[in-house]
C-alpha cells in the first residue's frame, strides 16, 4: 500500500502522482518496467523507453517545482533520481539483465566476483590476441563490427534464457556480457592509440 505525504491518503497501484490529490510522490513503489509501461525483458523497446522517459521528465523534473514548497521540491528530486536510474538501467541490456536477475533474488555480478569460467577465459585470451595483432584503424573497425554482432547474439540468447527462467545460464551469459563491455573499453583505447599514431 502506498501513502501520500500530502493528503495522507493511501493508494494500491504504484503511481508517481497521488490519485487523490495529484501531489508528486517521490517514493514510487513499482518496478522500472512498470514505470515506463514496458514489457519486462532484456531487449527493451528503445524508442518507447525514450518517449516514456521524456514524458515523465516533462511532468516531474525539479525545475517544474522551483517555486513550490521545499517538501514538493524534495519529492521531485527523489522521484527524478529514481527515474534517471531506471532509465540508465533499461538503456543497457547488461544492467537490465542484472536488474531482472536481482528481481529473482540472484546476484549475477557479485562484488567479490566468482571464478571466471574456463571457456570465457579462453575466449578472453583469443580476443586479446586478436586485438594485439590489429595494426590499422580499418582492421579495428572490422573487428569491432564482428564483436558487436557477437554481443547482439549474446543479448538475444540472454533475453531468451531469462524469458525461459533458465537463470543459471542467464547468469553465465551476464558475466560474459560484462566481460564484453570491458573489452569494448579496451577496443576504444586501442582506437584512440591508432588514431593518434
Amino acid at each position, binding site marked *: 500500500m502506498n501513502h501520500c505525504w500530502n493528503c495522507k491518503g493511501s493508494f494500491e497501484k504504484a503511481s508517481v502522482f497521488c490519485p487523490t490529490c495529484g501531489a508528486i510522490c517521490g517514493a514510487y513503489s513499482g518496478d522500472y518496467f512498470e514505470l515506463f509501461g514496458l514489457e519486462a525483458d532484456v531487449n527493451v523497446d528503445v524508442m518507447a523507453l525514450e518517449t516514456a522517459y*521524456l514524458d515523465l521528465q516533462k511532468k516531474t*523534473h525539479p*525545475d517544474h517545482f*522551483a517555486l513550490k514548497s521545499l517538501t514538493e521540491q524534495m519529492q521531485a528530486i*527523489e522521484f527524478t533520481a529514481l527515474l*534517471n536510474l531506471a*532509465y540508465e538501467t533499461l538503456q543497457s541490456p547488461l544492467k537490465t539483465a542484472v536488474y531482472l536477475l536481482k528481481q529473482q533474488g540472484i546476484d549475477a555480478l557479485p562484488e567479490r566476483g566468482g571464478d571466471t569460467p574456463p571457456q570465457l577465459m579462453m575466449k578472453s585470451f583469443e580476443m586479446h590476441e586478436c586485438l594485439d595483432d590489429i595494426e590499422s584503424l580499418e582492421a579495428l573497425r572490422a573487428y569491432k563490427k564482428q564483436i558487436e554482432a557477437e554481443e547482439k547474439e549474446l543479448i538475444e540468447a540472454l533475453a531468451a534464457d531469462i524469458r525461459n527462467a533458465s537463470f543459471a545460464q542467464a547468469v553465465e551469459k551476464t558475466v560474459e556480457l560484462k566481460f564484453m563491455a570491458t573489452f569494448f573499453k579496451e577496443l576504444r583505447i586501442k582506437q584512440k592509440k591508432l588514431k593518434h599514431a
Partner: protein
Amino acid sequence: MLDILEPGQHKKRLAVGIDLGTTNSLISYVKDGVHKVVTAENGKRLVPSALALVEGQVVVGAKAVETGKALRSVKRLIGKTLQDEDVQKFQQDCPYTISNEDLLKIDLDGENISVIEASAYILKELKTLAEADLNQPVLEAVITVPAYFNDAQRQATKDAAELVGLNVLRLINEPTAAALAYGLDKKAQGTYVIYDLGGGTFDISVLKLTEGVFKVVATLGDTELGGDDFDRIISKKLGCSITVAKQIKERLSSGDTEELTEAEWQMLAEPLLGKTISMLQEVLEDAELDVEDVDGIVMVGGSTRMPIVRNAIERYFGQKPLTDINPDEVVAQGAALQAQALSGGSREDMLLLDVTPLSLGLETMGGLVEKVIERNTPIPISRAQEFTTFKDGQTAMTIHVLQGERETVEECRSLAKFTLKGIPPMVAGEARIMVVYSVDADGILKVKALEKTTGTEAEIEVKPSYGLSPEKMVDMLKASVLHAKDDVEERMLREARLELSRAIEAAKSAFSADKELLEIEKQKVLASAIETAEQGLKHTDKDMVDACLSQLEKDFEEFAEARVNAALKKTMVGKNIDEVQNGESV
C-alpha cells in the same frame, strides 16, 4: 502609494538571468516575450567582473577598472583553497595579496574580503542595475556556471547569490544556456556542440535537442584556458603589455598587423587552438559520436570572434559554426529564458536535462578512487553503495568523497571526508554500511552514511540557506571551512598513526618469528622499543607520531639486517656459489 497584496497573489515577480563571467558579467531578463540585456551607467551591457576600493567603498565594473588596479577574474578563485596550483598562479598576476585565513581572502587595500564576498559584490551591482531598469525588486535568478565547475565552485556561487538576497532558481551550465538561447529561437533538432571560449574558461558540451527537450550528453572543459591566454602569448612574443596585446589581437581579426602577420598569428596560437580541438575529440568520443553526426556548432564567448578560432572549428567539423547571436550575450539570454520558464511563465513542453560534469568517487584501499557516479550521468541522481567493516570490533569508518576522472586520491579533488562513528562492534564483514550519494539539479552533492543493522547515521549536507541572515551565513561558511581545515590536520595525524601502527605490526611479527637470532639482552631492548612505539600512537601531534616511527625503524635496523642475512644463508644452503650468483635459485 500603497500596494496591497493578498498572500499567494503576489504581483508577478520577474526572475533574471545572470552570466557571472570571469572577465565580464551580464544581467538580462525576458519581459513580454522580449529579451533585454540591462545596460550599466556608462551605456555598456558588459559589466567588467572587476572590483576596487575607492575612498573606503568597494566599487564594481567600469569604475573599478578606471582605478587602474582592479581586482579581476575572481571567478578563477571561487571554491578553491590557497594550496590550489591555479590560485598560486593567480597570485603572481594579481596586485593584491591572497590569504587563506578561513575562506580564501583578498586584501583589497586593507579591506579583507572573501572570494565569495567578491563575487557577491559583482552580483549586487548587477542586481542593482536590473532593479533600476525594471523599477522593481529582483529576488530570483538563474545563474550560469562553467560546465566544468565542481561541487565546491557551484556551492560557492550559490552562496554568493544568497549573500545578496538572490534566490537561485537554478544554476545552469553556460553552454547549456547558449543552446537554450539558440534552440528556442530556432526550434532546432539534432545534435549540437557548444564551443565556449570565454575570457578565462573553456567549455564544450554536446547536446541533443528533441521536442523541446535539451539533453546534455557530454561535457568537458578547462577552467584555466581562455581568451586571456591568447593575449598572454602575444605579450610574451612581442614583449608588450597585456593591454597592448589585446589591441593587437583585435586588430588581427581584420588582417595582418604591423606587429604580426595573420600567418604568424596562426602559428603562434596553434598550441592553444590544438588544445581545444583535442578536447573536442575527447568529448565526441565520450558521447560516442563522430564529427559527421554533429548538426551544428554554437559559438559562445567573446574569444570566438577571432577568425582563427572560427576557421579552426570550420576545418575540424567541415561546416560553418553558428554565430548569429552575439557570443557575449548568448549565455545571459539563455539564463533569462530559463529564469522566465522557472518563475511561472513556463512552457510545459520545454525541459532542460543536465548531467554531472565530473565523476564522483570514493577512496578505497591503497589511495585509489572507486567511481560511484560516472561523469555525464543525468541529474538529479542518487546512488547507494554498501560497505562492510574489515576488522573485528571496528566501530568507526571514514568515508572520503572525491571528484575527478583520475585513478588516485592525490589526483582528484577531495570534496568531503567524514567519519561514521558508533558502529556497534561486530565480527569483520558483518556490519552493513550503506552510503548514499545524491546530486541535485544544480549539480550539488549530498552524502549520507547509514549502518543498516542499527540505524547509526552520519550526513554531510549543504543545507539550503533560505531565511538565514547574511551574517549568519558568513559565520556558517567560516565554520564549515574552518572545520574542513581541522579535517586536513586530523587526516594527516590519522595517516601518521596508521603508518606507525603498520610498522609496529610488522616489527612484532618479525620479532616473534626470529627473536632467537638475538641475545636475550637485545631481545629485551627491542621488546621495550615496541612498547614505546605503541605509547607513541597516543600522541595527538603528527610530528611526534612521525618521530616515534623513525625511532622504531632505527631500533630495528640491526635486527632487520640479521634477518636478511639469516634468510640469505638459508637459501644458499646446499647450493654452490655459482648458482646463486647466476640468480637461478631466486
